[in-house]
């Protein structure tokens, strides 16, 4: 396939994906905004205001502290669920065969679906970020470039993870199991609402095994220049996960796992 034709294939998948999540915006864009707003109100407003000494210890209000975590949480959930539901839906209806019988290369199929997941993740993240100004009007961003790099790579990683989940999924239950039992607990325990420095030593060690902790802290470092972990390790984890997940997906798609017999 010539490069221009590859570009057209990629654009076609991406356009279809973007149209899909805009068409069902009440399911894809609105719910995360409502959920995160509730977190702001309940955790940031009602509970956060009763936490004493937080601002003295961290130099920012509790409400400001949770903003990066909540943005990241919405990005992770949106990018993952976009790819997993769209790609599994295509497998379930067999419309994925439209792509498999075409000369679209496997890496373009992955790039197209992941591109859709990244765009939805970033869009939801941007909306939550804008909503957060209602609660934290003086929200600051110390290093916008770091913020962009971390949020982008996180959206890529979870879109790739969604793709991987949908390759193996055989029924709709299979796409919710990972979200319920792995993704949600890891996100909640990934330092969205607290700094791990406030945990006992043992739990600090356990927390460091959670890759989402590194993503949220790297992202938070871009806002306030403070993190529980070394941000280069955070960046390294994201880079390694991106490369590994990409190749695993490519290998499985090339082998036709779950799609070709």
């Amino acid at each position: 396939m010539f490069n221009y034709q590859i570009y057209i294939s990629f654009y076609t998948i991406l356009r279809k994906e973007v149209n899909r999540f805009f068409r069902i915006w009440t399911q894809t864009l609105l719910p995360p905004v409502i959920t995160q707003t509730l977190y702001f109100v309940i955790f940031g407003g009602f509970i956060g205001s009763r936490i004493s000494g937080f601002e003295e210890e961290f130099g920012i209000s509790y409400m400001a502290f949770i903003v990066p975590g909540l943005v990241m949480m919405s990005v992770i959930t949106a990018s993952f669920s976009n790819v997993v539901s769209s790609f599994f839906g295509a497998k379930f209806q067999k419309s994925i065969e439209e792509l498999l019988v075409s000369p679209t290369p496997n890496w373009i199929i992955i790039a197209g679906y992941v591109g859709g997941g990244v765009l939805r993740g970033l869009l939801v993240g941007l909306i939550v970020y804008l909503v957060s100004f209602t609660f934290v009007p003086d929200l600051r961003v110390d290093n916008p470039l770091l913020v962009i790099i971390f949020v982008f790579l996180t959206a890529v990683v979870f879109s790739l993870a969604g793709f991987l989940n949908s390759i193996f999924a055989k029924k709709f239950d299979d796409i919710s199991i990972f979200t319920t039992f792995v993704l949600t607990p890891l996100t909640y325990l990934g330092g969205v609402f607290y700094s791990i420095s406030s945990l006992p030593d043992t739990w600090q060690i356990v927390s460091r095994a959670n890759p989402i902790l590194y993503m949220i802290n790297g992202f938070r470092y871009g806002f306030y220049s403070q993190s529980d972990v070394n941000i280069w390790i955070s960046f390294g984890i994201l880079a390694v996960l991106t490369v590994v997940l990409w190749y695993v997906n490519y290998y499985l798609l090339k082998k036709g796992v779950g799609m070709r017999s």
Partner: protein
Amino acid sequence: MQTAISIKNLSKTYSNGFQAIKDINLDIPQGGFFALLGANGAGKTTIIGILTDLVRKTEGTVKVFNYDIDKNMNDAKRCIGVVPQEFNFNIFEKVINIVVDQAGYYGIPRNEAIPRAMEVLEQLGLKDKAEEQSKNLSGGMKRRLMIARALVHKPKILILDEPTAGVDVELRHGMWKYLTKLNEEEGVTILLTTHYLEEVEQLCEEAAIIKQGQIIKQDKVSNLLRSLESEAYFIDVKPETLNKNIKLVGFDLKIVDDSTLEAVLQKNQVINDLVKELDKYNIAVQSIRPKGNRLEELFLNVLSDK
């Protein structure tokens, strides 16, 4: 003439150990109209799956317009449009989007794909349904949508896996007409699997009969029909002229009812002789019609090893 599809020693064993096809050899000429006949599970869909990259072969070579699928699968895919047996499009998508997106997967830009899509939709009588969600189409329309989708990138080969299954008679005949036009006027090579043997007799030049993953007979449809050892006919006669004690020497004849006879003619017998014999008994013949589809008869004979 160039070969459109060349299959040599093709075999496929699925991961559960089931050998779906065994050592298949098949050449389909460019511009041909070829049928694959076989009972359910005979291996027809597996062959189509291998040609379209949905099934991975175990052994053998497959070339599509000289593109070896092991080396140039994407070039081979560009030559093929496929209409599968089951509906495989997004039921929530609009008809036009399904066809335009398919063109996009073949690298055709939208400004070119949209008029092309409208053209094929018009040819298949779906132009006024272009903005409909595909789930709202009738079964026949859904099947035509899949044909439109398969043709939007102008393939040299069209593969149809039981395209008229569940389609009403009028629509089936409309589809036959369209496929014949595609084949004759635009030179598209057509490979068809079907259960309607009448379809093969009407449309195809050549056919292969598959049984348990192997081709057991392959020839021009006309030659296949000629190979029939005998053929059965119904003879409609005027009831008042029918002599119930009739006995014709050399003919296998039986009385069905007051106005119908059934005759089985061997390959070396001619129908004129039979009519002459009936005339001797003053039986007035009104019409003669084949008892069943001739190809069906052959198909059943071959499958039952007669």
